């Protein structure tokens, strides 16, 4: 396929983005549809945080539920306990996630593969324990009564309490995330991450400090998941220790893997399929867990490169015929 000229491509992207925005309305526009779309946007933003680590750095971070929860808890504490606005809560979410990522990044700096995954997993369990026992974080009851999301830009103020009003915010966050991930992959850091992943020796011969690259990528990735958490806190109006549930972790992992790694729209498509199932064809909490696990295991066992690869393989076969 030949690349389109830049202005045409920009126009195409804008049209696509606009179509995406009106998609829930085209699908009936009920509150349930908007709610589902808001969830898809929020959870795929969360997944993109993990996507950078998994697809570009080649490691599995199991601490991204903790970053997601950190964003949500920061938003809840700042807006409920301190009465701050959503912008301040957003800054708090990003800063808190950066701090946690810095600590975790330093701890895991020299670990690789399963050691990295296990330490990040243990860190997530510890964060959940701390959240469940520390009164400052609401203990096991969590924090309730988060006010509706209100963002003011200059004199204009946008508020959301119902799913249809919420959708633009979630959609904007998703577009922003997509832009950041796209830019990241083309950036010096993104290229360095891939090189450190694919060929660490070559990377170090090229003068790249592997550990520094890993830490920086970790610091880029954490705020992405935290921002999703920030939005989710307002969406749900309460935060609790259920944010650490492995369900979110497996949702993120499956979302990234289902469509295919290192595809810009991969996590969005994967998450859309999974959240769509949960929202429209739910089999109850346990049934949904069962489906999620089965999808993850099935993909890894039969098509580890993702559904997109299956389709690509078929079209290659067709060309060869």
């Amino acid at each position, binding site marked *: 396929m030949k690349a389109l000229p830049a202005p045409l491509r920009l126009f195409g992207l804008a049209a696509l983005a606009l179509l995406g925005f009106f998609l829930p309305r085209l699908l009936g526009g009920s509150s349930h549809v908007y709610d589902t779309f808001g969830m898809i946007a929020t959870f795929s933003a969360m997944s993109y945080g993990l996507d950078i680590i998994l697809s570009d750095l080649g490691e599995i971070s199991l601490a991204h539920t903790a970053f997601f929860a950190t964003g949500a808890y920061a938003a809840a504490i700042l807006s409920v306990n301190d009465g701050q606005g959503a912008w301040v809560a957003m800054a708090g979410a990003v800063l808190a996630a950066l701090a946690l990522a810095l600590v975790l990044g330093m701890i895991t700096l020299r670990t690789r593969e399963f050691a990295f995954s296990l*330490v990040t997993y*243990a860190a997530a*369990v510890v964060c959940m324990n701390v959240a469940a026992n520390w009164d400052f974080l609401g203990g096991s009851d969590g924090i309730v009564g988060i006010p509706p999301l209100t963002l003011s830009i200059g004199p204009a103020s946008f508020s959301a309490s119902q799913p249809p009003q919420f959708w633009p915010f979630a959609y904007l966050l998703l577009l922003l995330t997509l832009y950041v991930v796209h830019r990241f992959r083309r950036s010096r850091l993104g290229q360095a991450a891939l090189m450190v992943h694919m060929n660490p020796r070559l990377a170090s011969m090229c003068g790249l400090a592997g550990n520094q690259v890993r830490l920086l990528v970790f610091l880029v990735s954490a705020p992405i998941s935290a921002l999703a958490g920030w939005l989710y806190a307002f969406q749900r109006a309460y935060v609790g220790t259920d944010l650490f549930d492995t369900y979110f972790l497996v949702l993120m*992992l499956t979302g990234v893997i289902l469509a295919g790694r290192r595809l810009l729209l991969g996590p969005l498509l994967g998450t859309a399929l999974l959240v769509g199932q949960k929202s429209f064809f739910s089999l109850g909490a*346990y*049934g949904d867990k069962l489906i999620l*696990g089965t999808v*993850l*295991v099935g993909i*890894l066992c039969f098509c580890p490169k993702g559904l997109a690869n299956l389709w690509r393989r078929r079209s290659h076969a067709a060309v060869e015929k």
Partner: protein
Amino acid sequence: MNVAQQLVNGIIIGHAYALVAVGWTLLLGAARLVNFGHGQIYMVSAFIAWWVMSTTGLPYALAVPLAILASAALGAIMQRLFLRLTLSQDLVNLMIATLGFGQILEGAAGLAFGPKPETFTSPLQAIIFTLGPVWFTAQDTLTVGATILVFLGLYLVLDRTRFGAAVRMVAEDPPLVALYGIQISHVYISIFAFEGAAVAFAAVLIAPRTPILTSMGFEQVVMTFVVVVLGGIGSVGGSYIAGLLLGLFTTFFSALVSPAYTTASIFALLIAFMVLRPGKLAASGNFAR
């Protein structure tokens, strides 16, 4: 504080930790594999024992082998499913797949057994020994004795038998072992079956102490991981000692400081260990690419 009693509690809990972790020691040490579904197999084993006892009325002594058999089969099925990933040494995908398998088990257990906490009891819990200021149950004695036997058995099998040699060879160089004529897929499946059986054995001995919940698998992996790492990855004797020390540490930590932050304190311990003795966990060890 009754120091002697805490000491006894610590020893019992320490053996329990070691027994839960013994399957992982083999898995990680000998086969270089991890299993994030470990905690969920623990949970499922406890529920199978509970279900057998509450629906069929079979005694505890029969529920134990049934749960162990079922979980050994579960471990074997799991590895059979993942065989392609294991044989291609696709460890990243394998790790995620075990996490997904754990999610399947949790969902299925929730559907089958419901969300309520359940309890099942062993008749040995009612038999109490008192020695001066300390007391413990016959179940505790069984847990300690069984742990010692399992560790001894594993050590002997790994060190003295042909099969043990095959397991150690597979850890070093799977393709070479295959050339030598050993069916490495059988070795991998056996290792996973052992992992399932061992964690099931631990579950049926330990789970009667507390109510069981289908969500309890999440935290189980952490303690196991710390035991295996502190024990020096793959060292059978090391895991035993690490489990014992960890049991004493958590008992005294929760008695003296705070029971709520025990997991956090264990994590702090792990980090201190990783900083002081990076060894096998660091990039320079066997596990680096």
